[in-house]
């Protein structure tokens, strides 16, 4: 090993250290920004080191330099534009796109390496890591694009199945597996291309049948895939920085996938095999009848204004209505009257892990008020009013009993509050397709309206009480 190799390897170790430290600093909102900066410092170091390596190799043609720099500038510009203009509600789509391009880039690195080596014979271990990289990268690429399309509403959010879709999925997997075995024995670029096509098909047919409610799991899983693909690219080109960074992202995606699946009480296999969304919801539970009480804005406002402690339970409906600013405003007015306000955030309240927190933070809600499920549940019993906005299944007490589609799902103990106000457009069902028993609770009043309008009305009504 030359002195130059020593230095570059050590610099890669330093940048990997920065990634770990950066992620470590994300353990609290107070230090998270510094964490992001530390990660970025690591990235700049890694890119600079690679530039030195590339220049030192001395084999890069002028075209090679131009292509590399133009590509980086174009991609960087696209990233810059996307990052600055994206709406916080559209964050899941953006993360999906980033997953797609990350997986795609990782696959391309392995493809290039393989195409170059194929003529001269490829070591078995390189073939295996190449195949893994290409498979995972290509599945992530097409799967994430479909996921982004669903989230953006370009493709219907409902599970999409067509006759034989399961068969296509299985066939794609079989072709990829068969191709992989062939390639290990006989290096072949043609077979590699067949494997890529099969993996791309598999990605599409894997994500299409998954319903909108399962998106937090899908995004997390694809994030884990991307990380793994990048680590495999590191194996292929023998670069430790890629292996370490890829493994870190793989671990992160893996943890989030598990958390999201647990929060819905569903196994990951169950989600991938599919079709929760709207279809297979099991027998509808006998609803406790239509005995719901509806409430007008003035009465709801009085309840809220004279409460000591209010917990707001936001769900995806709030985000869909873009009403996070209105809810923050209502909370602020209540706080001015001395009401203690906090937010109960279910892990799957949103379209990706932590999404609701970001939306509320954008609306200027201080983060100490954002409480996780385990932290807030014991507080419902001493809460005067729980205000549920656009959340449904995650508040259904039926989850505590066996024998229905939401059984066993961890829920927010909203029904233990002294009184409950639910803002909802209609008596429609949530994703699980069953009645929410909370609505029939004698302590519950329903405020039938859209989230934005209802919150504006409530805020105005509370303000008049001040005067």
């Amino acid at each position, binding site marked *: 090993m030359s002195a130059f190799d020593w230095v570059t390897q050590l610099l890669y170790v330093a*940048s*990997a250290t920065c990634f770990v430290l950066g992620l470590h600093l*994300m353990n609290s909102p107070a230090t*998270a*920004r510094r964490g*992001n900066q530390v*990660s*970025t410092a690591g*990235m700049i170091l890694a890119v600079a080191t*690679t530039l030195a*390596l590339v220049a030192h190799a001395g*084999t890069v043609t002028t075209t*090679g330099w131009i*292509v*590399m720099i133009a*590509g*980086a500038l174009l*991609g*960087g510009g*696209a*990233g810059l534009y*996307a*990052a600055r203009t994206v709406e*916080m509600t559209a*964050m899941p789509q953006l*993360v999906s796109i*980033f997953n797609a391009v*990350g997986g*795609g*880039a*990782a696959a*391309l*690195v392995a493809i*290039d390496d393989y195409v*170059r080596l194929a003529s001269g014979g490829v*070591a078995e271990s390189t073939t295996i890591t190449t195949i893994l990289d290409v498979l995972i990268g290509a599945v992530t690429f097409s799967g994430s694009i479909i996921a982004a399309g669903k989230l953006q509403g370009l493709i219907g959010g409902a599970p999409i199945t067509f006759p034989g879709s399961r068969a296509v999925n299985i066939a794609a997997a079989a072709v990829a597996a068969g191709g992989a075995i062939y390639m290990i024995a006989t290096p072949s670029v043609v077979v590699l291309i067949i494997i890529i096509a099969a993996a791309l098909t598999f990605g599409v047919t894997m994500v299409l049948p998954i319903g909108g409610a399962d998106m937090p799991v899908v995004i997390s899983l694809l994030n884990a895939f991307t*990380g793994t693909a*990048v*680590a495999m690219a590191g194996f292929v080109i023998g670069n430790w*920085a*890629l*292996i*370490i960074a890829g*493994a870190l992202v793989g671990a*992160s*995606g893996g*943890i*989030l996938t598990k*958390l999201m699946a647990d929060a819905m009480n569903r196994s990951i296999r169950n989600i991938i095999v599919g079709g929760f969304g709207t279809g297979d919801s099991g027998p509808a539970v006998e609803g406790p009848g239509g005995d719901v009480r509806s409430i007008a804005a003035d009465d709801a406002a009085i309840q809220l204004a004279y409460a000591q402690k209010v917990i707001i339970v936001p769900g995806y409906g709030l985000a869909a209505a873009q009403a996070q600013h209105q809810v*923050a405003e209502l909370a602020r007015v209540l706080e001015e009257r001395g009401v203690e306000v906090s937010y109960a*955030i279910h892990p799957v309240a949103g379209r990706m892990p*932590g*999404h609701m*927190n*970001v939306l509320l*933070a954008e*609306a*200027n809600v201080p*983060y100490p008020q954002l409480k996780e499920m385990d932290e807030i549940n014991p507080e419902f019993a001493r809460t005067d009013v729980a205000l549920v906005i656009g959340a449904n299944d995650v508040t259904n007490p039926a989850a505590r009993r066996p024998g229905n589609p939401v059984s066993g799902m961890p829920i927010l103990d909203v029904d233990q509050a002294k009184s409950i106000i639910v803002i909802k457009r209609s008596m429609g069902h949530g994703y699980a397709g069953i009645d929410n028993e909370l609505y029939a609770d004698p302590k519950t009043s329903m405020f039938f309206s859209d989230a934005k309008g209802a919150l504006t009305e409530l805020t105005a009504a509370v*303000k008049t009480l001040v005067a």
Partner: protein
Amino acid sequence: MTTVLLTDITIFVLALLVGFEVISKVPATLHTPLMSAANSIHGIVLAGAMLIAVTAHDALGYILAFVAAAFAAMNVVGGYLVTGRMLKMFRRSRSPVPAADTAPAVSGNGQNPAAGQRGASS
């Protein structure tokens, strides 16, 4: 089985374990920024994309290098900036307080700091 592969696997497994340990301590509040930070970190594949260029000297090599570099750079830049943008919104207390005390106009002002930042950054 080569020594190199064995070393690579060791590094991979250890990094996975470190990842699980560090990331399981990230609170749910920050899971979205965590994911976009992860996006930025897997942008390290930019290093791989740049190394393609070392050996590229035909059209296919150039195309692969170009696309891979563009994809990876999008991750690095976009992931970092969007994470920073989100983290900037997380505040311990309702920020610029002075505006919050001026009666009805409050409703607009309470949100302005956030809105202003959005405007400035876009």
